[in-house]
């Protein structure tokens, strides 16, 4: 009973925070800008959140996170619209939605596809928020017992899991993570006061500003990529014919795939810690196996839209559990959000739930409200969003340049930061050309300082012995998890080797 009354009290507290007119307005602005970012091609949620961080500077932490979270899941919604109508995913987690969504639109069922995506997203987002409410305090409670060694191992595990899923080549992704950690070591060492990699440059004493790297690697890189190929394909746009409403038959096919997508997405995002893009692919795979209508997939089956769209929203909500309860981001976008919170001066982690309940519960409540707003914003107004695609690419790119400069300059009022940002833009382009993922760099930068601190604290406890990471069961488990994550891509090869040994035919 105690739990229930506590729970109810928290919910009331949350809605009282999120329900103030100012926070409602911020929530609306957030989901609005998020949808805008999701719809615009070439600006993914990562670029979007990074570019918009500067507007949160003047806000209190709790208002800032409401705005950022709104942008985050707004972008998840918006990405599906262009997938369905233009066959161009607005962001990576909507790539799969193109497969069936565009086919449905071609058959004149664009309205139903959009409805299925929006309602599926709504359902999944609400579910993930509910889970965050139920399990968040519990996960935070467990993490409260963690000492420095456990936290260090947790960060190692978090980094490796995300890294192992980040790109085609594990070596490249790992190198990117380490590159991020290396950048994080720049500046004055907190514990000894010794300057590291400062090059006698006073502006580098505080280390390299995280936003400089994030905006350079994502936003400016995006500009270079688009400029490299200005004469891009002309987009063929489909219009919405007929009603938005789904028929009885549609609903009947909608629910099973929505539930499958939500559960698998939540599992992938909330428990495995992988991002929304992975979740959407897993869900499509699941539909191919489990759906009664699997033969229609790829030819405009409603399951192919509902499943992945539910999954990516459930995963987006799920990865907030990692961010809020453990302080460890599970995806590139949440890493940027963590970086922003650190800039405001808030360290997410297990203490957050007990020390700043109004922050956590305010956020959760605002997510419910935001989900409802998104449903309203996306279904009846879908035509307006599609019009955005009329913005010429070159203008969009000039806007991105402008906002990047504006944002980075406002952090430290430093011109040197602007040059560094341009430098990282070039690095970002080269990385993209070489197929080295950029998200792990951000993860490394955001976690680097804390990781080093926890490692050194652990070694003080153990008087310099590294065995402390192995002697403690939870820490050992987390490190083993990291090893599993790293060796994961080689499993098929190992599996095939084993099967060959036993004489079976190698399965594909």
């Amino acid at each position: 009973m105690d739990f229930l009354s506590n729970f109810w009290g928290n919910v009331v507290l949350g809605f009282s925070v999120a329900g103030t007119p100012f926070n409602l307005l911020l929530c609306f602005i957030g989901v609005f800008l998020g949808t805008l970012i999701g719809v615009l091609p070439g600006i993914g949620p990562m670029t979007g959140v990074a570019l918009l961080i500067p507007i949160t500077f003047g806000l209190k932490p709790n208002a800032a996170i409401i705005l950022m979270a709104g942008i985050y899941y707004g972008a998840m919604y918006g990405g599906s619209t262009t997938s369905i109508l233009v066959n161009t995913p607005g962001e990576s987690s909507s790539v799969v939605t193109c497969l069936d969504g565009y086919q449905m639109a071609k058959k004149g069922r664009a309205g139903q596809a959009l409805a299925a995506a929006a309602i599926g997203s709504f359902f999944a987002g609400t579910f993930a928020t509910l889970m965050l409410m139920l399990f968040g305090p519990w996960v935070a409670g467990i993490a409260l017992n963690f000492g420095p060694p456990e936290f260090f191992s947790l960060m190692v595990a978090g980094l490796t899991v995300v890294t192992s899923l980040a790109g085609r080549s594990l070596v490249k992704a790992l190198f990117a993570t380490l590159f991020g950690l290396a950048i994080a070591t720049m500046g004055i060492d907190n514990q000894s006061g010794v300057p590291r990699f400062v090059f006698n440059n006073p502006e580098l004493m505080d280390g390299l500003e995280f936003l400089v790297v994030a905006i350079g690697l994502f936003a400016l890189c995006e500009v270079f990529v688009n400029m490299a190929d200005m004469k891009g394909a002309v987009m063929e746009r489909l219009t919405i014919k007929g009603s938005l409403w789904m028929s009885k038959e549609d609903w009947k096919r909608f629910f099973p795939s929505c539930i499958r997508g939500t559960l698998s997405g939540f599992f992938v995002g909330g428990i495995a810690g992988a991002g929304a893009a992975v979740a959407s692919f897993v869900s499509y795979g699941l539909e191919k196996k489990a759906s009664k209508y699997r033969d229609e997939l790829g030819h405009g089956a409603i399951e192919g839209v509902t499943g992945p769209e539910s999954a990516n929203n459930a995963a987006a909500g799920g990865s907030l559990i990692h961010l809020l309860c453990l302080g460890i981001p599970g995806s590139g976008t949440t890493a940027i959000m963590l970086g922003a919170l650190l800039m405001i001066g808030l360290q997410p982690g297990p203490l957050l739930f007990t020390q700043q309940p109004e922050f956590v519960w305010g956020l959760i409540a605002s997510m419910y409200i935001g989900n409802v707003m998104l449903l309203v914003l996306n279904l009846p107004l879908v035509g307006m969003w599609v019009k955005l695609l009329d913005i010429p690419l070159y203008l969009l790119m000039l806007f991105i340049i402008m906002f990047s400069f504006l944002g980075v300059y406002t952090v430290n009022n430093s011109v040197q930061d602007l040059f560094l940002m341009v430098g990282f833009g070039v690095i970002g382009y080269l990385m993209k050309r070489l197929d080295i993922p950029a998200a792990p760099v951000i993860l490394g930068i955001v976690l680097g300082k804390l990781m080093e601190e926890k490692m050194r604290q652990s070694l003080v406890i153990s008087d310099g012995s590294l065995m402390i990471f192995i002697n403690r069961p939870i820490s050992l488990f987390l490190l083993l998890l990291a090893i599993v994550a790293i060796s994961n891509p080689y499993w098929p090869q190992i599996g095939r080797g084993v099967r060959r040994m036993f004489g079976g035919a190698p399965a594909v």
Partner: protein
Amino acid sequence: MKENREERIASIVLIIFSATYLTGAFLIPMPALKQQLGPGGFPIAIGFAMLILACVYAWQQFRGGATAQESEEEIEKRAVIIGAEEKIEKKADLRTMGFILGLMILYAFFFEILGYAISTFLMFMAGVLYLDRRHLVRDGVIAVISSFFLYYVFTILLRVQLPAGPLKFLEY
């Protein structure tokens, strides 16, 4: 055979970068007070790990031959499953990219000297003139709005400090 000259160069660059970082990490002065690990320990560990990975990467690129060919398809299949980002087109319009890079550098250089409003307006117009000059009037209006108008929105409404430059007398 996959064209991997770029990757070979990159792998060597990464080795040099890692080695430089590692050297720098070793040169971090140790404080007088003896500490566990000290300020240099963590960077040294990272430096070593980067160097090892860069070498593995180089080995993958220079080994070449049939094994690399075979795994290419596997890698692509995995990439599709986990939803890796799309590979970008290798053929690049270097002239446009060079222009944009130059534009950004000049923009950064003049950002404080000319102030936000003037430098943004010039950047925008230069970009429009180079990239697409068919809608000069419309784009000019957009440039004015996003430079002068936005300057006031940011400095007055959002109270964000932006450089005023020569327009100091217009300052609110």
